[in-house]
């Protein structure tokens, strides 16, 4: 699949923003046992909202006809893309009420209710984003429950890293939060590793069922076009196997190993607060690579008609 940079940026940045909002809401509700300053909550939530907004703005860049983008709210009954749009917009007013309730100190009850609602909407939006890809039977590597699992785990991971970064320059993160951050990195790493190991070899439909000739070898003689077409531009993108392995390893190091080591250094007591922003930037760059690979590695079944034996 062609990795559209606007979608790569959108899914990672908005995912990070939603993750940050979820973690902020979670911790501010008292989970993790930390007593937080309202200023830290507001700063963290605001950073999350900015990331979400930047991501959503970028998502419109891949549209060939953006003037009709407003219509994307209409088919939420069948389309995950439409559900994502609806949830992303529904998220804003609720998140804003939560934000104001923290700011103006409306009392623990009101804050907790809106923190919970904001969290649910953020998680639902990330889930919908993932389901846009996971629901496609045409791309076997995406059509798995690992896709939404990975999107949510990665979003939470970068949320924890972001929240720890905010606290690093405030009150400092508590021990429980540091361990939660490390755990989120570890779980996200395992999820992504399983995905990489499971989807290395083609296992989907073959050229035999694509053409209907199931009892003979089928070879492409002539693809029928002399220049690139929409189909080759959109679905013909491939990464060389050697480059793929290097990129996967680099992704795992940047997105998971560097942040895990950084968090461990702080837990250990030998790291300074400055390692959190470094870990956050490494994870963000790592996730951009991870998302680029998510698209670049995906094998669409239409390639079977262009001579691929199995996707």
């Amino acid at each position, binding site marked *: 699949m062609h990795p559209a940079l606007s979608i790569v940026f959108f899914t990672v940045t908005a995912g990070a923003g939603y993750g940050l909002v979820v973690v902020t809401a979670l911790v501010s509700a008292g989970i993790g046992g930390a007593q937080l300053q309202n200023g830290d909550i507001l700063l963290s939530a605001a950073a999350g909202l900015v990331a979400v907004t930047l991501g959503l703005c970028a998502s419109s860049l891949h549209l060939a006809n953006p003037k009709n983008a407003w*219509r994307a709210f*209409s088919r939420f009954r069948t*389309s995950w893309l439409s559900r994502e749009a609806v949830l992303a917009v529904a998220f804003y007013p609720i998140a804003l009420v939560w934000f104001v309730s923290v700011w103006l100190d409306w009392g623990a009850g009101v804050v907790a209710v809106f923190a919970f609602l904001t969290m649910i909407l953020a998680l639902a939006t990330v889930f919908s984003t993932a389901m846009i890809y996971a629901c496609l039977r045409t791309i076997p590597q995406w059509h798995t429950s690992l896709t939404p699992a990975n999107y949510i785990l990665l979003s939470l991971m970068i949320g924890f890293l972001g929240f720890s970064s905010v606290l690093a320059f405030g009150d400092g993160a508590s021990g429980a939060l540091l361990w939660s951050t490390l755990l989120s990195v570890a779980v996200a790493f395992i999820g992504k590793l399983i995905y990489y190991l499971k989807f290395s070899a083609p296992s989907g439909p073959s050229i035999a069922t*694509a053409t209907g000739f199931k009892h*003979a070898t089928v070879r492409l003689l002539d693809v029928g076009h002399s220049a690139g077409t929409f189909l080759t531009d959109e679905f013909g993108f491939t990464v060389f196997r050697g480059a793929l392995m290097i990129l996967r390893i680099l992704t795992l190091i940047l997105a998971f190993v560097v942040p895990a080591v950084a968090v461990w250094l702080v837990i250990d007591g030998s790291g300074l607060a400055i390692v959190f922003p470094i870990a956050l930037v490494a994870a963000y760059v790592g996730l951009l690579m991870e998302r680029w690979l998510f698209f670049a590695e995906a094998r669409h079944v239409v390639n079977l008609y262009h001579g691929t034996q199995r996707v």
Partner: protein
Amino acid sequence: MRLGLVIDLDTCVGCNACAVACKQWNASGTSGPLSDYAPFGHDPSGVWFNRIRNYEIGDYPSSKTVHFPMSCMHCEDAYCVDVCPTGASYKRPEDGIVLVDPEKCMGCNYCAWACPYGARELDREEGVMKKCTLCIDRIYDTALPKEERQPACVLTCPTHARMFGDLDDPDSEVSQTVAARGGRALMPELGYRPVNQYLPPREARAVPAYDKGASLVDRVKHWVNESIAR
């Protein structure tokens, strides 16, 4: 009603006339224009609703070249329609034709991702998705003589390798042919239930080839027989 095409892989000669007729009709029809990119340049490209690929089936000497025209299958479970966020893609309940409303399409490509058959192509100049309409602006045109109310690709095919009709009606010519010839759908395992059917090539003997494995006696016998026949 479930309108669709039946394509005979036995008689198709891969002449591309169907693709050209399709382009000609639809470029000036309701879906038009079908934009071309650098049509007089080094790498001319553009939007086509119908593409023909060529495959070799089987191994020599039992191999066969098969020409393979593909366009929208007008699937019964058209997932391209389900994933469309704007409602631009729709399937007509009355005849099953899958269409795109260019007034609503935002050009997100999602429907093309959902299509296993490569039937949808984005018109980069218009910014909207385009696809086979089964020549909806021909087949219901009462100003045309009855025999011409068929898709342009079907009318133009010089070997009658393309048939158009209602695959819901068991007595229709297309349904009868599919039943008689063992017509089949492409990639049925994805569950899209494509309406278009492909008739497999008829059984044919392999072209005789020099048999390297024959014994000396057989080869002498063969030479004698050949000499006498001469």
